[in-house]
């Protein structure tokens, strides 16, 4: 896992942010926001919520940047923060939904989830749990190496490999099913 290079623009802009310079935050936003918003989109399966999480992340970044110790690349750390924020949001949404369901006593017409599964990948990922969605997207969609993924998910590479293998199988099954019904 690459450590933060002392002389990189990343390091320079981190120091600027730590010094309270908004330009440091702007550089980090311009460099990482697109990757983060797509990661959040694939976890939350909602564009609106993804934008909301990323905005929240960057607003809070000046406050939480002290947590970053430079033991990994800044991108790795940001992926992890975004991943955790998305899972927290889903958990909160799940709690709210359970509460609403308890109050509404199982309304059959009520939507089961708020996913915006407009594209085929979104539909394929909807069949996986949020953590696996995040993992599969970062590997296949962003091309994040396994070693870096191990730092993001805090799991050994072997565990990630087997999870990825199972996830790929599930997506392939989904694609075959879609093909059979003539959607692909």
């Amino acid at each position, binding site marked *: 896992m690459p450590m933060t290079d002392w002389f990189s623009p990343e390091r320079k802009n981190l120091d600027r942010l730590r010094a309270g310079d908004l330009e440091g935050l702007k550089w980090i936003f311009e460099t990482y926001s697109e990757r983060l918003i797509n990661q959040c989109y694939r976890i939350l399966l909602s564009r609106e919520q*993804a934008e909301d999480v990323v905005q929240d992340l960057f607003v809070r970044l000046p406050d939480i940047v002290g947590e970053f110790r430079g033991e990994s690349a800044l991108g790795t750390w940001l992926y992890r923060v975004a991943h955790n924020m998305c899972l927290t949001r889903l958990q909160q949404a799940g709690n709210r939904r359970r509460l609403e369901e308890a109050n509404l006593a199982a309304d059959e017409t009520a939507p089961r989830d708020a996913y915006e599964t407009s594209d085929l990948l979104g539909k394929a990922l909807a069949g996986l749990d949020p953590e696996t969605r995040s993992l599969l997207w970062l590997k*296949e969609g962003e091309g994040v190496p396994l070693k870096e993924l191990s730092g993001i998910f805090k799991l050994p590479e072997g565990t990630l490999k087997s999870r990825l293998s199972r996830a*790929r199988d599930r997506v392939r099954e989904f694609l075959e099913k879609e093909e059979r019904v003539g959607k692909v």
Partner: protein
Amino acid sequence: MERFEKLFRESERIRPPAGMWESIAARAGMALKAGKVGKAGERGAPIARETGWGWKMAASLAVGIGVLSALLVVMKPAPEVADKAGGAEDFAVARAAVSPLPDEDDLYWHADLGEESGMDWVEEEDALLLDAAAADATDE
């Protein structure tokens, strides 16, 4: 191209909406102006110190040397104590000077003397009293 790979490669990629940065800058800028920046060392150490193995090693070494020195100072006896300690012979002499114990034979002699002389004294007094009583009785 395999369908699986195509699925990811041709998937929709979204971009941050226009005005997102301005909104973040407005909200984060207020925090920055208020000085709410998580400075390195507040919750985490600065990158330079965190990533520098040399610093870590040097600090560990310094702490180790410090602990060893302290242990040596504590364990080494003071010179005056060492001089007084001397050998077993010196110690015996010193003990005799501080608290001389009487010889066992001397104690026995004292005990015998006291007991015998005491008994002699009692027997002599008894004899005198008996003699006096006898004299008184005869006078009557």
